[in-house]
């Protein structure tokens, strides 16, 4: 690999990685609080991208297709899809909270399929262009051109995640979230409104995924009903690598996975069609050798 390629893949890896990290963070937060893998998370990301695109096309009429439009799309989509997450929790997951694990998992799967199926039915399975004119101005490092857009995207994801970390570690609600994740029953006895904390967690996790969806849509310029499937799988991998349930772990896992994928698929003997196989191999290796991930702590289940 030449130095240029190394730098180029570093940039690519960081961008993809910050998307992964945003989605992984939501996975991890929801998992932390209700110990449920929210299968619908990838589809929430996809919904975020679509809502963002709709908003973008509307406001574009007034503010143009530049940064302002993207920011509007981002904020509205995060809010709307955050609420969607709350609705899903209320109607699909809450009734199942005391059901056997297997039933909860299948319900979560059902919720995911309903989102995905609705998107397919509404869009007819077409790709939609997300045409921005953010431009290609940027910096040149050696022979690699890094656009300002790329820098802003990575910075924005890091900002969102840092905000989330601050929220979880500094605020009262964050404290309640951590309490519920350690012991739901005891938290209820201590007067914490557990249902509200869970709803809030879904809101925030979904909003982050939606943010990731809008940014990814704007960056790649296209949105598709199936975009959440592989993303869900990869974000889960990122969350496992970082240590599921851990906020910094999700960020680290996302960035690492992005880099791994970027460098892995540029190796001469693995073409890009094998990229997903590569990621999946990493997942299995982690599950076998370090199931608690890099930053997760091991928990002994009470018997």
């Amino acid at each position, binding site marked *: 690999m030449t130095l240029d390629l190394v730098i180029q893949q570093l940039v690519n890896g960081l961008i993809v990685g910050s998307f992964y990290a945003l989605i992984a963070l939501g996975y991890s937060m929801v998992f932390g609080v209700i110990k*449920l893998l929210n299968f619908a998370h990838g589809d929430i990301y996809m919904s975020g991208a679509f809502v963002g695109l709709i908003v973008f096309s509307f406001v574009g009429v007034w503010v143009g297709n530049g940064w302002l439009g993207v920011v509007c799309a981002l904020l509205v989509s995060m809010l709307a899809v955050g609420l969607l997450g709350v609705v899903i929790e209320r109607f699909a997951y809450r009734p199942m909270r005391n059901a056997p694990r297997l039933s909860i998992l299948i319900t979560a*799967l*059902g919720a995911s*399929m*309903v989102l995905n199926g*609705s998107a397919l039915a509404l869009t007819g399975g077409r790709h939609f262009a997300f045409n921005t004119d953010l431009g290609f101005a940027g910096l040149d490092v050696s022979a690699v051109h890094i656009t300002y857009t790329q820098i802003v995207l990575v910075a924005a994801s890091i900002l969102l995640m840092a905000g989330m970390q601050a929220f979880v570690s500094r605020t009262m609600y964050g404290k309640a979230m951590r309490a519920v994740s350690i012991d739901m029953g005891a938290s209820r006895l201590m007067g914490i409104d557990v249902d509200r904390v869970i709803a809030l967690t879904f809101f925030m996790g979904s909003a982050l995924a939606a943010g990731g969806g809008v940014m990814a849509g704007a960056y790649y310029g296209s949105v598709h009903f199936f975009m959440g499937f592989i993303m869900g799988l990869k974000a889960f991998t990122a969350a496992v690598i970082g240590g599921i349930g851990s906020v910094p772990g999700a960020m680290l896992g996302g960035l690492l996975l992005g880099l791994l994928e970027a460098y892995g698929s540029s190796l001469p003997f693995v073409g890009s069609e*094998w990229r997903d196989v590569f990621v999946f191999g990493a997942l299995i290796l982690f*599950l076998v050798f370090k*199931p608690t991930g890099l930053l997760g702590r091991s928990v002994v289940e009470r018997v």
Partner: protein
Amino acid sequence: MSDGASTLSAAPQPPLVRRSFLLWALAALACALALPHFANAYVTEVATTALLYVVLCLGLNIVVGYAGLLDLGYAAFFAVGAYTTGILTSEFGFNFWLTIPVAMAAACLAGIIIGAPTLRLRSDYLAIVTLGFGEIVRIIARNLDITGGASGLVGIERPEILGFKLMQVQHFYYAFLALALLAVFVCLSVERSRMGRAWFYVRYDEDAAAGIGINRVSAKLQAYMMGAVIASVAGCLYAAKMTAISPESFTFNQSLLILLGVVLGGMGRIPGVVLGAILVALLPEVLRGAGTYRPLVTAVALLAIMLFRPNGLWPDKRG
């Protein structure tokens, strides 16, 4: 206490099929046997698909319904069987019947590779890993030369029995009926055996099962592998029937349909699963005009069942 024991130990083993149910089962079998004589080719074709789903759903039911493991990549094992038959007959000139044991061995091996590392972890992890595995198998099938890439394999040899070549829809209908009956018999036998009970113990309370002396990882692995083997055999016969297979028959959606069949009728119960499988096979026929709405209907069905009838349409009277 030995006094009481001698009279009590006479408690007999229950029969494979309850007597009250036997009559219904025989009537259903008679209808199934007679069907091709009354039905046209289209109906026979749909019925054959239904029987294929009966086999697949019974196989997945061992994993999901008995052992309580969520497998989201079950179609991968179906693919392992279909591609084994496809490759061995068309590339290496194997006899169809010889490909079945090879496919079973391949499915076992794949089951161990995926199951051994993940079955000791939380059940949610298994769900995602199997989902990933399903995708990987499809990606591999799409990108290798020996599997024919995206267009798949064509010209797969049709099987012969005692000099009689299976050709027509009816022939395959009976072949699948035989396989489905075999699957029902196998499931009935295993369900009420030591290993079958162990799966239920693990499904209902893993810790209690371990505490009572059951090796939970081994029990789960055996369920997972047995499910894999059943799917692979179904795959072999499917390849022979279609004579052409492509990666698109083994997608995530296929896995979801099989899972829907298991959940719809009632997880863990053979009559429920058979009913669910038949419904799932009829679904595309009923929804012929629905086009892109089809996955949504499947999804809503799954979610509605879980929320409103978690024990399925035909639940166990006991439960």
